[in-house]
């Protein structure tokens, strides 16, 4: 497992331009595989257009207590990019003027931002009802100052969405680091104790599964059944839904695909699994991604590739709904990750 981010290692692939070049060269340049643009054009779905904003996904910083093998953010303890309260205030000012109903907080470990709680409390005051926090679970057990996070989540009725690559220790720790499985189990039990994830409970607890290697996720419903059975039998843990997410070929996962000589086969798998029905509901059509420094992107992946929104408005402080709605979504070959099989989004399958 990696102990440093690609950025800290000075890796060639920490450069987003280099990643985009790779994704456009080789099998896509020589016509062996169709580019994403050509593929969606076949079903007259190019250009992809943004609909009305529903979800504001805010990346409050790339710092994380874990260094997961396939992290698309290249997050880790050595990443210092962190959102300031000033940027958060700009986001709050925008939320008041939009119909966005969901604030989706991600990172890094979003809870590590020193203003994380302030941000949630202020957003709550101005009427945001649907909060999602993408929690890595282990943060809850990482330091005493985070021990009361489950209570904080409960107080604000935050929807907790957590990564859990497998129901066995071996596969989980391989992907997310030594000891992650046991800490995650403990955190899930604590969330269950507060009512999170229990049948009929309003405190929503969902898990995210993403494959541990160069293969696509299986059927979400079948995986959910297996996860529920194993976690209940082994640890008496309950949760609501499992979201099966496809790994997108960017950042650390791209680095892994190339190093393990799986890149071409993986791209073939993605293109073969292309589902035009999934294109209709890709998350970029109703979501805006805000980076730690307030810039706007079509999704968290485009943020990591430094592909800004195709609009005059580039920063949250200049937000104008009429200039962003209907914009053309910026695409490249990584987008195949969201249209494979039943489709993939931060909310699970889309088709």
């Amino acid at each position, binding site marked *: 497992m990696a102990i440093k981010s690609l950025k800290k290692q000075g890796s060639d692939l920490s450069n987003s331009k280099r990643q985009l070049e790779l994704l456009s060269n080789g099998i896509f340049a020589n016509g062996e595989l169709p580019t994403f643009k050509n593929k969606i054009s076949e079903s007259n779905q190019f250009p992809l257009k943004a609909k009305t904003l529903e979800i504001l996904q805010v990346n409050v910083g790339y710092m994380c207590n874990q260094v997961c093998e396939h992290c698309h953010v290249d997050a880790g303890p050595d990443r210092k990019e962190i959102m300031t309260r000033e940027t958060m205030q700009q986001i709050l000012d925008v939320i008041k003027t939009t119909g966005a109903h969901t604030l989706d907080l991600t990172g890094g470990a979003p809870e590590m931002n020193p203003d994380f709680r302030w941000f949630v409390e202020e957003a709550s005051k101005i009427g945001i009802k649907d909060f999602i926090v993408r929690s890595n679970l282990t943060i809850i057990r990482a330091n005493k100052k985070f021990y009361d996070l489950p209570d904080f989540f409960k107080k604000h009725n935050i929807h907790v969405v957590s990564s859990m690559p*497998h*129901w*066995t220790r*071996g*596969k989980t720790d391989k992907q997310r680091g030594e000891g992650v499985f046991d800490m995650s189990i403990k955190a899930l039990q604590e969330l269950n104790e507060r009512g999170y994830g229990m049948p009929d409970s309003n405190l929503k607890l969902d898990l995210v*599964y993403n*494959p*541990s*290697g160069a*293969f*696509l*996720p*299986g*059927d979400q419903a*079948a*995986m959910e059944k*297996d*996860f529920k059975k194993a976690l209940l039998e082994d640890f008496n843990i309950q949760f609501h839904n499992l979201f099966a997410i496809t790994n997108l070929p960017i950042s650390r996962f791209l680095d892994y695909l190339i190093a393990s000589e799986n890149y071409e086969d993986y791209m*073939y798998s993605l293109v073969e699994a292309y589902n035009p029905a999934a294109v209709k509901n890709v998350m970029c059509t109703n979501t805006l991604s805000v980076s730690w420094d307030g810039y706007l992107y079509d999704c968290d992946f485009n943020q990591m590739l430094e592909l800004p929104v195709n609009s005059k408005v580039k920063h949250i402080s200049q937000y104008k709904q009429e200039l962003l709605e209907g914009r053309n979504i910026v695409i490249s070959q990584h987008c195949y990750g969201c249209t494979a099989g039943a489709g993939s989004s931060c909310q699970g399958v889309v088709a």
Partner: protein
Amino acid sequence: MSNTYYDPADLKKFGKISEWNQDLGDKFFEYYGKVFEEGALSAREKSLIALAVAHTEQCPYCIDAYTKDGLQRGITKEEMMEALHVGAAIKSGATLVHGVQMMNKVNKLDG
């Protein structure tokens, strides 16, 4: 022509067998798809059976395909290896159970 008998890239071309006999090819793939659907056995159980049989049949294409299929279904490497031992046990058992025939013959000829 490739100068080896097996080329991993050929697996992707499996569907092409229909080009030289559309009717039988279509029927085969329809049957194949149906076999692996969720039924009295789960698709997961069928995947493990396929993996074990892929090994007893020593089909490299099938081994690649059902190892990947298993990973996609969240099947662990421990489960995969156990499934292989089931196949291996039947293969070795099938060899050794013929030992009774040998013993019968010895007893008849030289008993």
